[in-house]
């Protein structure tokens, strides 16, 4: 009997007694609320402010709709490269990173995703003016001071980062192959956000300048300010910093159509780092409706919770939104001595449990309570709080709607999940299967009997 079935049969066996219980939500909306205001400055910049006198410092987070999906064809990695130049300072005269450190910054980072480029800064409370100034100065200067020398250096650094993120880790190459297969060779995400090496190699400083000039503008950004500050003092600080940025319209980005997708059969991929076989099931769907997406999000968490490391299996599931494309992915990893077909079998069992078997109510409730718990822990930290406020904003919701945004998983009955997951993952959306087969030679291992004399 497979390990997955052992675990799942236990869940089903214990279902009946708990079946009658109602949903046991332990939170109230107030627990997930954040007192915050949202305003739009005349230059188009959206400012979300959430003061908190219990916080030790302040958090300034600026997000641009300027991620990889806005890159021109054949220029993957451009947004990320631009982020590098903008983050630490485009030239030797504007070294934001060192200046922030000298002011006691406790966090300094920039990230690029499929949709956004963002800059995050944590500072002592007295340095809030500096934080706002830095964000404004970065946008105001734009690409004007980019130096060829800094550009060349950062391209080398990005190569190192590419090796860190995409090459030197378990399942890195299979993941890149999946990415390429799912999005196709011309898509900006074909080599991940960091980009395809050939595109990076051929990128010119002018490309980066054009990208920054067109996307890094106040009217294309959201500024989130959190932490220990008096709300009455904020308008004056905004006025001398980000409100001074000129209003410049953002050229509309060409709508990206869902990318091509030819799911068929199972593809075998070589895995050089891990000795454990992995199976990945991948679905790509163009523009699913919001309810379906909500439920797929919850389904991914439910799948991830089926196994807690017992029996040596690992399950990970997730949903990735990349413009018009939505990707649902389920990974199952088994111990080294199992064949890859065993992983495939277990993945099918987990999928069946999500889509066909009656899920125990107590398990369903426990997972939803865990989601609430993790969200409340996230709201306890300034950086995570900022990211959750952004999650609401990007969905077109004001800050006061945060509890509603964060607790959508309580809207669905487990039968809704079962039905939608069945309809989407089994009936209507074709899938692709990837087998990551370890290629490293196995050393002789002790048998179970040897380990337990």
């Amino acid at each position, binding site marked *: 009997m497979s390990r997955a079935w052992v675990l799942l049969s236990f869940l089903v066996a*214990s279902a009946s007694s708990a079946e009658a219980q109602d949903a046991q939500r*332990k939170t109230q909306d107030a627990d997930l609320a954040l007192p915050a205001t949202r*305003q739009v*400055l*005349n*230059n188009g910049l*959206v400012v979300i402010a959430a003061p908190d*006198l219990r916080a*030790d*410092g302040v958090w300034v987070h600026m997000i641009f709709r300027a991620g990889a999906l806005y890159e021109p064809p054949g220029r993957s990695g451009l947004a990320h490269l631009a982020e590098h130049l903008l983050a630490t300072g485009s030239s030797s005269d504007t070294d934001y990173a*060192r*200046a922030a*450190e*000298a002011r*006691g910054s*406790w966090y*300094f980072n920039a990230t690029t995703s499929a949709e956004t480029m963002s800059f995050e800064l944590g500072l*002592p*409370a*007295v340095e809030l003016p500096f934080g706002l100034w830095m964000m404004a*100065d970065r946008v105001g200067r734009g690409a004007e001071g980019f130096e060829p020398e800094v550009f060349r250096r950062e391209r080398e650094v990005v190569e*190192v980062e590419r090796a*860190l993120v995409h*090459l*030197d880790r378990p399942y890195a190459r299979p993941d890149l192959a999946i990415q390429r297969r799912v999005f196709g060779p011309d898509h900006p995400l074909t080599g991940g956000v960091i980009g395809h090496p050939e595109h990076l190699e051929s990128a010119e400083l002018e490309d980066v300048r054009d990208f920054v000039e067109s996307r890094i503008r*106040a009217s294309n950004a959201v500024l989130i300010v959190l932490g*220990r500050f*008096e709300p009455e003092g904020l308008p004056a600080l*905004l*006025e*001398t910093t980000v409100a*001074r940025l*000129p209003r410049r319209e953002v050229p509309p980005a060409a709508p990206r159509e869902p990318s091509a997708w030819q799911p068929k059969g199972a593809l075998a991929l070589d895995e050089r*780092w891990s*000795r454990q076989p992995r199976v990945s099931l991948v679905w790509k769907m163009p523009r699913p409706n*919001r309810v379906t*997406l909500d439920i797929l999000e919850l389904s991914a*968490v439910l799948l*991830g919770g089926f196994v*807690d490391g017992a029996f*040596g299996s690992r399950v990970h599931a997730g949903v990735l939104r990349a413009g018009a494309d939505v990707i649902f992915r389920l990974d199952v990893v088994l*111990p080294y001595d199992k064949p890859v077909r065993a992983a495939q079998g277990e993945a099918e069992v987990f999928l069946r449990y999500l889509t066909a078997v009656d899920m125990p109510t107590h398990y369903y*409730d426990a997972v939803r*309570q865990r989601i*609430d*718990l*993790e*969200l409340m*822990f996230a*709201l*306890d*930290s300034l950086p*995570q709080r900022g990211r959750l406020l952004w999650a609401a904003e*990007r*969905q*077109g*919701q004001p800050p006061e709607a945060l509890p509603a945004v*964060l607790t959508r998983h309580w809207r669905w009955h487990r039968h809704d999940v079962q039905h939608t997951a069945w309809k989407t993952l089994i009936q209507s959306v074709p899938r692709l299967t990837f087998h990551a087969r370890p290629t490293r030679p196995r*050393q002789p291992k002790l048998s179970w009997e040897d*380990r337990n004399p």
Partner: protein
Amino acid sequence: MKVLPIAGLCLTAGCAGAPEAPSTSVAEPVVTAAPTHWEPVPAPAPLRTVPPRRLEARHERQLPNGLRVVVIARPGAPVVSIRLAFPSGALDDPSGDLGATQIAVGLLGEVYERDRSGKRLPAEDSLRRKIFEKGASYGWSVSHDLSHVGIDGYVEDLSDYLEQLARAVRLPRRSEQMFAAYRSSYIHELEELEPKDGPTWSALVERAAFGTRHPYARAPLGRISDLRELSLEAVIDRQDSLLTPREATLLVVGAVDVAKTHRAAQRWLGAWRAGAPPRRRRAPTPARPPRQPEALFVSVPHAKLAKICAARRLGDLRRLEDGQVELLAEVLAGGFGSRLFARLRDTHGVSYAPTGRLLRRRYARAMLICTQVPADRATEGLRYMRETLVDLRERPPEPLELERARAQLSARAAGRAASIPALVGHALEEIALGRPPRLPSGELVPIALQAQLLEARRWRFVLAGPIAPLKRAARANGLKPRRFALR
């Protein structure tokens, strides 16, 4: 602790797919008119005053059985983190039974198999599963100096959690079946450990830092030969010696009522019998640093990058305070303004981010600097690291460098209270070290000691990556190569 990747999932995928149009529902603009062009201005001065912060108080009590109860009330969302911590870890593994502590603590979260009379019980849920089904999460950990079990969950269930934890330590679970599974799993992990893995890399770095035979240089998981011979009886003995309220700490952090929490602690853990005093082993002082610079290296055939760490044990520099070493580590390799960052990334573009820190254990300390460089530039990377050490010895930190480093250390100190996990982590570190970590004084290392600390021959290097370029790098930099074997 293991957590479901829920929040991360929510953030990366945006908590499901709504249209991305910005909301138009809120407030009026505050600014009269947007300018037409940008005029740079100098960075502003800090604010003169900021609103005062309401600090969390720490409420500490000791129960008659010796258990220390520390409660940190942090108003906010109704969540709580609980840890029951013991200042004893893998360092106290009985000789010949290395790995016993890890299994002894791991079994606490599993199942009861027999009752007190030895009669087999019907199958039941594990403690982990019971906690999971309350919507909370159970976790445990064993390091060299510390063992702990804990629960992250809802404040309303605090009393239940304490009851469960009290039962776990007063009547430990000792399942034969799970013992066999844990032992097998750890042997498997030790067989599998590769240089790419975190635990192997840590063991290797600690080996460089404290010496090959030092107890801190072995994996807390134990040793294959010991685990093969390990018996359940030995694990039960280890549970008996470890699980005593004497010197243990119950840590509760979250939106709790302090008085109620103390009452609940007394109710569930007050009757826990003190028993015999815990047996503790003191780790020897690490041997003096080598007289010849060495490189330990390991082969990672397919890696594009070479991982390089340099370690300097500090047993011969007892007069150095932790804060002084931290300040120097910050100047050397902490963040964007450090010398190593300037050299490796700004000047040569060979590194993403070097790091520098003080590696602290209860009985030993070492200074560490680490980075990753392209494997085909390992010779260069290693040379830059060594030259930066020499340079700092000859050219002590300048006032601006010190100002930046002090600001960074202060920021890190403030960050210890920034969230519930940070408060918990800080308190556990204090228990592991057996003393409150000293806050950085901001004092510079005296010149004479600095010269000793940065003496090139006292540093040991660890290199991981494709073997040929690593060997070339070691030779070109005059390091004596030594192969690494974990088991």
